[in-house]
């Protein structure tokens, strides 16, 4: 084992491969910053260019793009309220509010450090437990997935910093939006209104860019012209480092998000996206002051930003050990492997160990580079916040428009984004939160698919959710999550009556 790791490092630390890792991580950061241009499209474009490289260098570079993206996407989420990538959508919620308070530096630093911890621990996970974990992930069938999604959805109802009724309303809207497109089992069209674009459903990127980015621009327009920038110039932007309290508040979320993201990354249909959303919900659920989420607190950034990176690392496990890519980007990496004549799967450790260990150890190298690249950049990028509103708001608008179009060269995505921009504006005016909407929108389709699959397997019997142990445990957690406030109240009442008697 140690031998293999050392051999791996001897490959990944060769001058050649350090260079490719550097290119990959820089491209990844840039792609992350640019909304719309996703890692998938980038890797697809660069894939033919890597044909001449040896397989290890090619994968080291392409993988660098994949995990670099989650670092870069944070920048625009925090500074401009535009999610650079789908896995940093949730960071907009608290990250941007922190920026408004002059704490953008802290948010970005914690995000970069959390990302580094999440990735590094994730990579250790790949080295130590990849094969057994992969087989556990396979036992995770439709029933288990359904129960996991139900447990995830119970978090939605707790996402209310405003009234629970508004929160549930938004969750319902999110579920409906998740239904748009072809239904996952029969393939019938739903809510497409004859639009070809909507056949694939509503893409999360224009949805989130509308709700957050465009919504923000429309709100900015209301402000008076004299306002200088997002942050008053009196606020010291140089104060980049998190305060002692912020460090303390971040430790818990980072420690929880690392294993959570890692495991969700391994699951079929999981990945960095799901990981970031569930982590946000979880942090709010376990927080002592859930009402502060959405107002710009560090826990809302630290958790999801860690989870999306450990989720990215986790997604490498089914790819490398089973040859099964569960998301678009790992599918492209699989293509890259295959074009170079290496088939990832159970045999990769025997047939091409140098590729496996070279790529895995390169992730340490790459993540270290990302940390070193990102921390100094924060000081530079943060100046965006000094740009006066009258210049910044059209700029955000333009970036959103380009981002939405470049997603799949389709002008309809801009229409979708503008629609949700108007909705986002109205939601702000009437004080509705975007968080429950987005979480329900992400979980809803997965819940529907797995629920219907499970019922197909069981011939319609609901017993499948209770007789399978993992599913039963997850459902109990969901039940506890719903009942806990009631139980808490009951418990306090009993305590009160008891103390009265005493």
């Amino acid at each position, binding site marked *: 084992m140690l031998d293999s790791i050392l051999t791996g490092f001897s490959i990944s630390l060769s001058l050649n491969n350090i260079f490719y890792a550097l290119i990959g991580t820089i491209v990844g950061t840039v792609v992350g910053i640019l909304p719309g241009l996703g890692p998938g*499209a980038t890797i697809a474009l660069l894939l033919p260019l890597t044909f001449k490289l040896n397989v290890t260098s090619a994968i080291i570079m392409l993988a660098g793009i994949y995990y670099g993206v989650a670092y870069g996407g944070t920048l625009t989420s925090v500074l401009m309220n535009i999610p650079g990538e789908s896995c940093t959508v949730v960071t907009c919620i608290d990250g941007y509010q922190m920026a408004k308070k002059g704490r953008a530096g802290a948010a970005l630093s914690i995000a970069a450090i959390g990302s580094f911890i999440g990735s590094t621990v994730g990579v250790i996970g790949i080295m130590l437990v990849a094969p057994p974990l992969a087989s556990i992930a396979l036992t995770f*069938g439709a029933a288990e997935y359904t129960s996991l999604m139900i447990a995830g959805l119970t978090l939605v109802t707790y996402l209310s910093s405003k009234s629970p009724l508004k929160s549930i309303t938004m969750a319902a809207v999110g579920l409906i939006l998740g239904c748009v497109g072809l239904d996952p089992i029969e393939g019938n069209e739903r809510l497409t209104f004859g639009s070809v674009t909507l056949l694939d459903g509503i893409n999360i990127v224009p949805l989130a860019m509308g709700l957050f980015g465009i919504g923000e621009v429309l709100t900015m327009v209301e402000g008076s012209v004299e306002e200088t920038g997002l942050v008053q110039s009196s606020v010291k932007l140089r104060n980049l480092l998190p305060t002692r309290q912020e460090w303390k508040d971040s430790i818990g979320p980072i420690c929880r998000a690392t294993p959570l993201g890692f495991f969700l990354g391994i699951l079929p249909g999981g990945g960095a996206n799901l990981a970031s959303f569930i982590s946000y919900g979880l942090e709010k659920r376990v927080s002592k002051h859930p009402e502060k989420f959405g107002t710009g607190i560090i826990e809302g950034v630290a958790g999801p930003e860690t989870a999306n990176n450990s989720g990215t690392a986790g997604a490498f496990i089914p790819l490398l050990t*089973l040859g099964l890519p569960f998301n678009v980007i790992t599918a492209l990496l699989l*293509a890259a492997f295959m074009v170079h004549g290496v088939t990832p799967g159970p045999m990769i450790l025997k047939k091409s160990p140098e590729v496996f260990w070279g790529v895995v150890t390169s992730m340490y190298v790459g993540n270290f580079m990302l940390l070193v690249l990102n921390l100094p950049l924060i000081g530079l990028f943060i100046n965006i916040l000094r740009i006066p509103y009258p210049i910044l708001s059209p700029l955000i608008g333009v970036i959103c428009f380009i981002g939405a179009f470049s997603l799949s060269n389709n002008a309809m995505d801009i229409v979708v984004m503008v629609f949700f921009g108007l909705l986002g504006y109205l939601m702000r005016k009437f004080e509705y939160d975007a968080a429950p909407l987005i979480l329900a929108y992400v979980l809803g389709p997965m819940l529907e698919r797995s629920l219907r699959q499970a019922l197909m397997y069981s011939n319609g019997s609901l017993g499948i959710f209770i007789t399978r142990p993992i599913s039963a445990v997850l459902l109990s957690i969901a039940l506890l999550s719903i009942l806990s406030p009631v139980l808490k109240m009951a418990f306090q009442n009993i305590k009160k009556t008891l103390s009265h008697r005493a």
Partner: protein
Amino acid sequence: MKMRVLTQWLLVMALTFSLGATADAVFPTKPITILCGAAAGGSTDLTARMLAKAMTEILKQPVVVEDKPGGGGFVANSELFRAAPDGYTVIVNASSLYNLASFLRKPSFDPWKETPIMSYGIYPFTLAVKSDAPWKTVKDFIGYIKQNPGKVSLSTSNPDSMENLPIWMLEEKEKISVKLVPYEGGAPAVAAVLGGHAQAFTGVAEAIPHIRDGSMRGLATYLGERMPGLPDLPTLKESGYDVVVESRLAVYGPPGVPPEVVKILQEAFRKAMDSPEFKKVCQSFEVTPSFMDSAQIDRYHRDLAAKTKPILIKLGKIKE
């Protein structure tokens, strides 16, 4: 007067030259775009990219692939219908557009009006089970399904994709019924078989690495001939079932591309198929390179559609 003669003369000269230019100009005189309605980096996109690269040298004009993913190819095809029928914009489509999608989705355009140009390959199709499963052949498996009606589940990548068609055909011919459980793509569908949730997987290339390394067993391919990458895997026909379904990668143009331009494009694509990079990409995605000319691919798709329609009607997916 003199001036008028001169003008007339110039006009005649100009007309002659411009006419001559049109007649002599060899297609192509400007860059050609190949639209791709599938996701970037997949087998459709990459095979097209390799052909485009080779064609750039053959035609001495840049040939570029433009990805317009969405709506199962509908976005890209709508784009094709907006392009001029001059051969400078073509598209790579899978057979399912002319077969399943044109019946099930009611596209706003008529795919049968597109100009067929050629076909360059066949997607891999396999029926595979987990390696510890008791069934060694399709006969074993179908026998088991007959003894356990309504209990056997097959995982698939999509509710209405081409790899479900041979299963529907088998259900009808053999009077059996299975549960076809759709997943979000081939990888989770293979995972469902490896995890023991479904008994078999019907799909494209995703199972092939697992068949090779021994974690899955291939029962058959639905293609007309064995796949070059898996020469030991029999076809359904060889296994005693008269079912052949091939999904082809086909190049089409907008309605009304002139026949001489079709001919030039068809030959350029045929020559590009010799490129080593194209062959390499085909090999890694298990795509079988196979040429069909304009008339052949048109006939192939019309036959396939005629065979599919009654099945879809019987399944209740479409009305007469």
